[in-house]
């Protein structure tokens, strides 16, 4: 399934937010991935030192093109390189696709799907929204996207075009004219903004540990079936 390391060539980069960018790679032999899967990325220094990190894949479907979106962690050793240094034509090594749990497949989808993102946790959920659009799925897919400010939204234009109902919660600064002041997701807000538990949706939650921990617990409190709530967390590493 995962095979060995493959060489990816950077074909493009795009600034997504002040601290993040998306990176498109051509990876001969990749062969496609499911929406929500991740990969391992390996960098090697001139003296042979290596570092490997896992990243969610923003793209989905067949083919050898892979898109990532990486948020810079200032104390990290890999993400600053990927966000600030990497250029088109550069090579990195990749292994994957990995993970068979946090995935959305059109053919086995529940009629309603709720995606819930905290910050850069939107990346695998974008892959699901893209797969939803590409497959012509009739599942009612919604995205609740918690983000610090309007400037921190990943893939803003594309999210509006994908046919998925997107609701933003701005935690630090809301845009002018917003219907809600800035503030974190609460249990009450969650209940108001997501599919109701009564429609028994498939739920995917991805974001920082504290966010996912709170949201998943509230969902269970609100009557969502725990086995329908899939989570992926990152610890800021």
């Amino acid at each position, binding site marked *: 399934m995962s095979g060995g390391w493959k060489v990816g060539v950077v074909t493009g980069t795009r600034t997504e937010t002040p601290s993040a960018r998306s990176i498109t790679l051509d990876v001969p032999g990749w062969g496609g991935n499911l929406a929500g899967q991740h990969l391992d990325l390996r960098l*090697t*220094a001139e*003296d042979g030192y290596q570092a490997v990190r*896992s990243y969610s894949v923003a793209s989905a479907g067949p083919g050898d093109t892979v898109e990532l979106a990486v948020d810079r962690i200032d104390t990290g050793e890999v993400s600053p*390189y990927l966000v600030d240094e990497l250029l088109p034509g*550069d090579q990195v090594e990749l292994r994957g696709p990995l993970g068979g749990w946090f995935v959305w497949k059109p053919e086995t989808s529940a009629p309603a799907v709720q995606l819930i993102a905290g910050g850069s946790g939107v990346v695998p959920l974008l892959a699901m929204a893209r797969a939803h659009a590409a497959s012509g799925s009739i599942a009612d897919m919604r995205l609740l996207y918690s983000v610090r400010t309007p400037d921190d939204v990943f893939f803003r234009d594309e999210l509006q075009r994908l046919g998925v109902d997107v609701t933003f919660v701005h935690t630090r600064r809301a845009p002018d004219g917003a219907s809600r002041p800035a503030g974190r997701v609460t249990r009450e807000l969650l209940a108001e903004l997501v599919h109701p538990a009564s429609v028994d949706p498939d739920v995917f939650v991805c974001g920082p540990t504290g966010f996912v*921990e709170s949201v998943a617990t509230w969902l269970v409190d609100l009557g969502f079936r725990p086995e329908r709530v*899939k989570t992926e*967390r990152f610890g800021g590493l």
Partner: protein
Amino acid sequence: MAIVSRGFGSRRRESSPDLPPGQFLTTDFPVLSAGPTPDIDTDDWEFTIRTETGQAHTWSWEEFLALPAEDVSTDIHCVTRWSKLGTSWRGVSLDTLFEDVESSHDFVMAHSYGGYTTNVPLEDLLDGKAWIAYEFDGEPLEPEHGGPARLLVPHLYFWKSAKWVRGLVMQADDEPGFWEQNGYHLYGDPWREQRYW
């Protein structure tokens, strides 16, 4: 031969001979779970070992705490590449729990509250290699880290150390558990980098 990434390597994390290949050190304790954290009241908690004859050895929370406990200092290694060295746990050795258990089966499926499962060979649970842990750093184990009690099998990748463990079922074959059916290695030795299929 690995390809070289131009200009990479100016910042590096601390290294250590105690670090298995492909791992990096962390001082945090990251949380990784496939779903919501279950809310388990110790009044309702039970731990059961079930054998092929259908015989069940069951402990209530009170009975479990009355068993001899051990303090364990160990390194832990997550398949997502973080390792944490010298962690402190308190728990009951599986040797103690298996004392009166008779089984001819060589494999175990661990089951958790919330539905998680993971498979482990019996020999990896005995001879001082595994515990049911209920304290971390001298405090009751937090729910997000598997409390009230989790399996602790620190010589394997940490997904084998099932959070919220509620029982072990003996099995004749090494049937795969949850992550093992979802792309991860059947055994999971960090020193041999047995991460994926």
